[in-house]
């Protein structure tokens, strides 16, 4: 737009007699200055000596003012007896000079002072309007122009300036009325007409805008810009025929101009004249090879012509030139969607959505693509986002519902039937197992656990069962050597150290091995307890049984070994032997059960128990006979059930050994009580023995 407030000085007219010089001078106030200097040039006729004369002072001050000397002027301006019109003139002069010197703020202040003092004076209003508008004070400029227009109401350029200032100050209505006045006063001005049209359009009066545009077009029929402008306006007024005609005329006037071409193409597309549009846009794309907008338009044209592949190529080119345009990605996605390339379309929609996350329509389109390509999970995710961002949008909600519906439908009908589900005969419920069957199962489980126990023991250490045999052998060997030296060759009973210590070690081991190994049974078999059939009782008992059987095997092997090397001795009293073995094993199992329960609550119980068994070793008559002890000590030791076990076992080997303190029934009762207590504890606390995995 020409002739904005910045350029006001070029257009400021002056009085007819001053016009010639005015063109040469830079501002309207120069006229006043000229007058002053003329006056200065005159001889000081009236009173050369009277320096207090205001007129004289005025002359010198005017000189200072035109030089922009603020300090010199201030002295004068502070005087009270200065008439307002002079004061205003001085401010005016100062303002102009200061403005040219670059101190715009002070110039603005001076102009304001001048305008306040004498707004009705044309020269002052003129200068002030110029300073105001150049300083960006559009409202004040507009006020100054209105003053001027009150003096000269038919001044077309003045109306044009006022309009510009009002428009810049945001008062569009007044800007429009001045703009129209300007053009109406001077209908031959192309610029005024264009200005008025632009303003009218911006306040939404296309009919009146069209009127002024027609005027402008008549003034300069070769201006493509005006034709384009008018065409747009007419199209908005539904006069599409004329609009298109004008657009085509603009193209004819400037065939290489991209703006005219793009405009014409768009109008042609909107009026469904696709082929004509294609002709224009293809030409322009040839000329402007780097213009993404042209390619975007070409893509739209080809799409509307049904050439979707070409359209895709065009939008790809546009995206090469401008990869960040969300709308291009959106368009491309739509094209891909049309072509049935749903996955790529979904991706393109995704890119558009990423570039412009605030646009819900992109997401809505994405939803459609996912929906159509059967990607319901993605569709649901997008739908969720849509509903979250715009919870009140009914259309989105409906789309989401549709997706959900289809998802269920798909699950209903779309899956591959792996199994026909014939109505299977309802099986008779199995009867609950009888006690006999339950017992059978339990025995089976314990048996399986025992086998596993032996297998793992074999697998766990290299020695495996070697150790089970080696431990008592070494033990007996060591005791025999030590005591053979100490006792000079004769054991307390019989004549063979090996057999004597054997009869002590075997029952002791039977008890200790059993009770100790059962202590850890639950914690080391937690994984097995996952199997429904396996109970804590099973794993505890299986361990005890394995120990008992192992120790018995060891006992038999040792005895056989002794016999083989000629130091053997066969038990004389088999019933006593079996009775003692069974009771001590039962006692071991009973204590083992109790240990297992205690260990579930006190994790270090197994360590304490190991210490206790060591003490037991010395109290059980393993390497001595209690008969060797003083009576009172023996009476205390006789409370130890293991002592009875050892003596019972021992007496079955040596018929001559008949200890009067031996009471098998005591051991049996203790064993029975321990087993009962162990079973009760295990049963009662079964739920708390382990934390399920």
């Amino acid at each position, binding site marked *: 737009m020409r002739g904005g407030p910045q350029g006001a000085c070029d257009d400021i007219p002056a009085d007819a007699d001053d016009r010639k010089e005015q063109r040469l001078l830079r501002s309207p106030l120069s006229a006043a200055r000229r007058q002053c200097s003329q006056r200065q040039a005159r001889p000081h006729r009236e009173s050369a000596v009277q320096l207090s004369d205001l007129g004289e002072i005025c002359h010198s001050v005017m000189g200072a003012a035109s030089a922009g000397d603020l300090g010199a002027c201030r002295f004068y301006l502070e005087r009270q007896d200065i008439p307002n019109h002079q004061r205003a003139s001085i401010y005016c002069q100062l303002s102009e000079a200061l403005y040219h010197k670059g101190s715009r703020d002070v110039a603005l202040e001076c102009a304001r002072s001048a305008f306040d003092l004498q707004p009705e004076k044309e020269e002052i209003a003129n200068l002030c309007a110029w300073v105001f508008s150049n300083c960006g004070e559009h409202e004040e400029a507009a006020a100054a122009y209105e003053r001027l227009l009150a003096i000269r109401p038919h001044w077309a350029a003045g109306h044009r300036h006022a309009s510009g200032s009002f428009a810049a100050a945001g008062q569009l209505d007044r800007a429009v009325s001045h703009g129209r006045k300007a053009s109406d006063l001077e209908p031959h001005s192309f610029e005024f007409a264009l200005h008025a049209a632009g303003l009218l359009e911006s306040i939404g009066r296309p009919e009146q805008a069209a009127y002024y545009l027609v005027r402008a077009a008549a003034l300069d029929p070769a201006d493509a810009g005006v034709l384009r402008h008018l065409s747009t306006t007419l199209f908005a007024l539904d006069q599409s025929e004329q609009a298109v005609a004008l657009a085509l005329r603009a193209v004819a006037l400037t065939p290489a101009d991209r703006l005219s071409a793009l405009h014409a193409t768009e109008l042609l597309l909107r009026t469904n004249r696709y082929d004509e549009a294609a002709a224009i846009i293809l030409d322009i794309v040839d000329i402007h090879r780097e213009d993404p907008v042209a390619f975007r338009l070409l893509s739209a044209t080809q799409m509307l012509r049904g050439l979707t592949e070409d359209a895709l190529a065009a939008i790809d080119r546009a995206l090469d030139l401008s990869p960040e345009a969300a709308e291009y990605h959106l368009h491309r996605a739509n094209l891909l969607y049309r072509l049935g390339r749903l996955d790529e379309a979904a991706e393109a929609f995704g890119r558009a959505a990423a570039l412009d996350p605030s646009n819900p329509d992109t997401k809505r389109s994405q939803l459609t693509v996912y929906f159509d390509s059967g990607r319901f999970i993605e569709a649901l995710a997008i739908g969720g986002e849509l509903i979250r961002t715009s919870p009140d949008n009914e259309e989105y909600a409906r789309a989401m519902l549709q997706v959900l519906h289809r998802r269920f439908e798909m699950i209903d009908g779309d899956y591959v039937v792996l199994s026909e589900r*014939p109505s*299977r005969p*309802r099986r008779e*419920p199995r009867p609950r197992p009888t006690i006999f069957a339950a017992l*059978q199962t339990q025995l089976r489980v314990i048996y399986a656990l025992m086998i*596993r126990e032996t297998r*793992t023991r074999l697998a766990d250490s290299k020695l495996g069962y070697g150790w089970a045999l080696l431990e008592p052998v070494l033990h007996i060997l060591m005791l025999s050597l030590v005591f053979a030296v100490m006792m000079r060759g004769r054991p307390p009973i019989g004549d063979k150290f090996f057999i004597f210590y054997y009869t002590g070690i075997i029952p002791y081991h039977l008890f200790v091995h059993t009770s100790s190994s059962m202590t850890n049974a639950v914690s080391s078999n937690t994984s097995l307890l*996952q199997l429904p*059939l396996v109970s804590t009782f099973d794993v505890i008992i299986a361990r005890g049984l394995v120990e008992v059987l192992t120790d018995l095997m060891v006992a038999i092997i040792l005895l056989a070994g002794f016999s083989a090397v000629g130091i053997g001795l066969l038990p004389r009293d088999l019933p006593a032997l079996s009775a003692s073995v069974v009771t001590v094993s039962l006692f071991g199992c009973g204590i083992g059960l109790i240990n297992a329960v205690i260990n579930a609550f006190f994790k270090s119980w197994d360590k304490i128990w190991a210490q206790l068994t060591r003490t037991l070793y010395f109290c059980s008559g393993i390497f001595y006979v209690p008969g060797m002890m003083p009576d009172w000590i023996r009476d205390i030791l006789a409370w130890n059930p293991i002592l009875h076990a050892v003596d019972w076992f021992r007496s079955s080997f040596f018929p001559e050994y008949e200890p009067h303190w031996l009471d098998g029934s005591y051991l049996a009762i203790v064993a029975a009580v321990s087993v009962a207590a162990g079973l009760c504890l295990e049963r009662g606390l079964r739920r708390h023995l382990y934390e399920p995995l």
Partner: protein
Amino acid sequence: MITLDRVSKVYRTRSGRRTVLDNVSVTFDSGQNFGVLGVNGAGKSTLIRLIAGSEIPDFGVVRRYARVSFPLGFGGTFHGALSGRENVAFVARIYGAGTRGVLHYVEEFSELGEYLHMPVNTYSAGMRARLAFATCLALDFDLYLIDEVTEVGDQRFRQKCAEAFRERIQRSDIILVTHNIHTLRQYCDRGAILANGELTLFDDIDAALGQYHRMVQESL
């Protein structure tokens, strides 16, 4: 048929007590496959283990009128130092199935070959899973408990598993826990929803799914 009679189960977690079942009495009829639905942490796995008998209810009784499997594909009982064969034989013994027949089936099905004679320690996770799956199928259970079907092995082996399973559910029932709606609809006749200590049975898996869907929506 499985009957839960006034069963309660409370789980102690670090964040406090969580009621899985609160005085629940239901009957899982035989001849019907059940799909159990519930949000994460509702206690579906605990329910499965209660039914299996791996866990004992705090109160109440679970009665099983069927041979109930351990959760399908559960390989936790395998002892690393024992060979595959020994482990399988152990499970077979526990369930009183013929050791030889079970071993034969597992050899055929798991395709582990010579690995069956090696300690389970040396197996990959996939091989362990195959062994567990084969063991579970080898034992002829009336009711299979499946807690989140895990895909085992390559495409071909999965096909084989699906086939074997399809054949098996001609005569066995299943109780299935999964989030896969597809699988649920494929296998289950009826549904159950576990939420807030209550177990609700539905006559129809679709009804259960619908209700579950509404439930999840509401809680969102």
